[in-house]
């Protein structure tokens, strides 16, 4: 948080201008922290701030109350300049119970604002959080942070005295009290939240009344309570003009599919098996039956990919989303699509760890699986969105490439992009590239594996076309005729053709954007959801005059044709990833460059601060 000049406050209390702030709401999974955070993000966005969010919740649906593993949190960074990440260290932490304090305190900056709900700091909750004494009684806490002990529960109950609800129902409104309070502290407008509450509880006027009152009570408490001596203003960010909305990565993926279905006028079959953190794509698709996208909840991951291969054989677009464990199960199906040269798109919303791992945490460790995790030579196109909103464009692009080249495409999203939200400039659909689809109907000179000269794609034939009846399958095909072939030279040829077809997708890739000087001391190369962290860290270092640049890859297979040339313009290459070094391995192998990795595999986004230090260290190290 960098302090700006104090502005003449219109409020009774002085208002200090900031250019950014990082706020985290933390509480029990039943405390409504996700809703609170989402609403605060909406308020911040309405006031024109740029922002990035980081929801973080336990894998357990109803974790026992008060426990450390049951803590749910929602973090966001908002600011008047471009915001790339949800922030590393917190300027403000709201802890609704002792467990939340225990889990999150270490992320709060020294001198940061700490708001605690004192009512929750009683024996039972302290025991569950493993405190032997009440941490609020420890003077060290007050020395280190600007601690505000607020009896949020009692203040909420008092505000709702006349509302016809029972004690438990009233108590559940306390998250809106905290939201109101933080809204006042950061001068965010509460109108969007009032509107949201009114709509959300339309069927129950008492809940509308209660939550609205709690929200306003919190806001007014900030205004009047003497413990709060100042509030903070953040000017609107300079963002491209236009109509904005908030969007999460999973919703953007789903909408990208709908956009492609609308543009191609083709049926899309979406086959999926529920899995965290990809299920929301299935939920979103299932809501939109009017858009020509037919969703199947398949019996398992293998069937899910099977259904979309069947759909693609039928002349529809086959799409599915899953996460690592599910993608592993789909390998055989993907290879059938490789062999049969059918267009399918698979989203891998990556999560952390092998096996079940950490289902609700993020990671980028499926890159090598996407590229190579199938039997034999199995080339597929691999793309990766950089931000939640980018998921829309990458989903659309994946479908475009799949049908143009008759090839499977894997898109690597992750848990962070999936549930993270950002203000999104709503695109004009007319600006999206066209997705030309032509089905072969002419029997003259037809064979299942004759190829387009430019793309090497084989013809897409809809069953039902007279005169083009043909048989395909997973056995090796003779080029052109598509007949089963065990011929050694033909197999060698087909292996090369399948690879070449994917390589030719490179002609679709626009010139790589270099963020920073076109040559210099260090190039930072990333892919996927680390875009924000890398950009923020690189821009910080650039401000100190260093010749550092970054590129962020959306195409991972094939790689951009100009990448090799760009890599050679820098002394050193650093590849930050949330894995133990996967892209770095590929860059070293493909380009014979001495790239080094920056790797943290903690189930969380990379820390901007740590990355900046790593960049600075690398610049200091003489070769």
């Amino acid at each position, binding site marked *: 948080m960098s302090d700006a000049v104090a502005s003449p406050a219109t409020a009774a209390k002085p208002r200090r201008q900031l250019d950014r702030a990082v706020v985290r709401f933390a509480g029990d999974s039943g405390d409504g922290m996700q809703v609170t955070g989402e609403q605060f993000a909406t308020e911040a966005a309405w006031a024109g701030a740029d922002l990035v969010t980081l929801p973080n919740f336990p894998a357990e649906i109803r974790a026992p109350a008060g426990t450390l593993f049951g803590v749910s949190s929602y973090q966001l960074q908002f600011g008047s300049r471009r915001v790339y990440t949800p922030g590393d260290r917190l300027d403000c932490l709201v802890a609704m119970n002792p467990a939340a304090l225990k889990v999150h305190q270490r992320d709060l900056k020294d001198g940061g604002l700490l708001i605690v709900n004192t009512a929750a700091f009683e024996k039972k909750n302290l025991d569950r959080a493993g405190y032997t004494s009440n941490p609020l009684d420890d003077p060290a806490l007050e020395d280190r942070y600007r601690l505000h002990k607020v009896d949020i529960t009692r203040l909420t109950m008092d505000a709702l005295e006349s509302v016809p609800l029972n004690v438990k129902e009233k108590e559940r409104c306390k998250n809106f009290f905290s939201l109101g309070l933080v809204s006042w502290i950061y001068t965010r407008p509460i109108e969007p939240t009032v509107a949201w509450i009114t709509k959300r509880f339309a069927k129950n006027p008492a809940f509308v009344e209660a939550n609205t009152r709690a929200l306003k009570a919190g806001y007014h408490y900030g205004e009047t309570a003497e413990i709060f001596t100042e509030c903070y203003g953040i000017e609107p960010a300079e*963002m491209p003009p236009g109509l904005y*909305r908030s969007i999460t990565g999973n919703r953007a993926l789903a909408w990208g599919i709908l956009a492609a279905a609308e543009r191609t006028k083709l049926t899309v079959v979406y086959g999926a098996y529920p899995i965290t953190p990809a299920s929301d794509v299935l939920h979103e698709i299932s809501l939109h039956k009017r858009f020509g996208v037919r969703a199947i909840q398949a*019996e398992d991951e293998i069937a899910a990919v*099977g259904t979309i291969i069947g759909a693609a054989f039928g002349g529809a677009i086959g799409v599915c989303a899953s996460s690592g464990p599910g993608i592993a199960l789909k390998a055989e199906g993907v290879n059938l699509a490789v062999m049969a040269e059918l267009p399918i798109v698979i989203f891998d919303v990556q999560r952390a760890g092998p096996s079940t791992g950490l289902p609700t945490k993020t990671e980028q460790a499926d890159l090598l699986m996407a590229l190579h995790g199938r039997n034999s030579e199995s080339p597929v196109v691999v793309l990766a969105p950089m931000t939640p909103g980018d998921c829309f464009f990458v989903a659309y692009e994946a479908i475009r490439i799949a049908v143009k080249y008759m090839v499977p495409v894997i898109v690597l999203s992750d848990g962070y992009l999936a549930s993270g939200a950002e203000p999104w400039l709503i695109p004009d659909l007319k600006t999206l590239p066209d997705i030309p689809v032509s089905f072969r109907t002419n029997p003259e000179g037809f064979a299942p594996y004759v190829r387009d000269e430019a793309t090497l794609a084989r013809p897409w034939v809809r069953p039902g076309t007279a005169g083009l009846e043909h048989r395909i399958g997973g056995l090796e095909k003779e080029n052109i005729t598509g007949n089963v072939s065990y011929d050694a030279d033909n197999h060698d040829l087909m292996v090369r053709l399948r690879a070449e077809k994917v390589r030719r997708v490179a002609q679709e890739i626009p010139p790589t954007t270099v963020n920073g000087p076109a040559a210099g001391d260090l190039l930072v190369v990333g892919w996927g959801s680390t875009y924000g962290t890398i950009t923020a860290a690189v821009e910080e270092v650039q401000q100190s005059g260093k010749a550092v640049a970054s590129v962020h890859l959306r195409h991972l297979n094939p790689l951009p044709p100009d990448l090799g040339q760009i890599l050679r313009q820098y002394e050193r290459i650093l590849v930050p990833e949330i894995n133990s070094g996967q892209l770095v391995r590929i860059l070293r192998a493909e380009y014979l460059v001495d790239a080094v990795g920056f790797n943290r595999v903690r189930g969380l986004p990379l820390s901007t601060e740590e990355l900046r230090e790593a960049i600075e260290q690398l610049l200091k190290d003489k070769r």
Partner: protein
Amino acid sequence: MSVTEAPKKYTKKDFESDQDVRWCPGCGDYAILSAIQKMMPDLGIPRENIVFISGIGCSSRFPYYMNTYGFHTIHGRAPAIATGLRLARPDLKVFVVTGDGDGLSIGGNHLLHVLRRNVNVTILLFNNRIYGLTKGQYSPTSELGKVTKSSPAGSADRPVSPCAFALGAGATFVARTVDRNVAYMEETLRRAAQHHGAAFVEILQNCNVYNDLAWNVLYDRETKIMNELRLEHGKPLLFGPVDDRHGLVLEGATPRVVRVKDAPERALWVHDDGNTWKAHVLSQLCTPDFPIPIGILMQVEAPAYEEVLLEQERAAIAERGPGDVAKLLVSGDTWRIG
């Protein structure tokens, strides 16, 4: 299917592809292929609207030999692939060809779900009680104690009855037929192909290389008489020699074999192929205590999965019009900058 003019009158030859058939000489699959090719013209469906989808195994080579659209897929997954195809293209007639290993071992899950969903596909399961393409290991329908390459001391696996499995999964059409009775097989396959919803046919098939005469009780003239129970809707369940007919009676839920001459005619079990409860009992009958039922065990009507989904789609469009992505993008909370 929207056919405006009368479909071309096909002959068996129209359904023969140009590929050499590569099954072992003497394989039961030849008879099945021939019966299906002979039956196809009766369906009155344009050839281009027919798709055969198979998994892996000897039976799954089937699509290559049919001059229709065909997809030889991966082991056990044909039902899932067929489900996706039907949802994308409800105008197509889809057949699934599978075997006892493909359908009941590696693909058991998919077979279960295609049947319970009642996807409108015709499923032909060739049951030769052995893995043929991998050269002779026991299959999920091999008898307990079966000696094979992978079970030299006898298989410890108890076999599954494909028809009982299908009924348990909620199939709406279940039949059994034998490769050596081509005329009867043709008739059963036609009825299956004409069923609305998932039709399941177990075809008892001979693998003359790895499990020759596995169904000999139904082939051998002598034993066949006492072991084959022809199911005919509305007729008593009878078998045995002409001069000593045997029948079945149900005592509570327990079936029992009786000599017709010893039983009052009213007591005999009359086959009702609309009775799902009795079909479960029929599916459990096997030698040596009972004859093997051949024919249609059960056929009932139920909505097909993809039709229910498509009806939901039609209803949503009827109510609110076709989707408009531009409108969707600006739905909910938006704000303007600049």
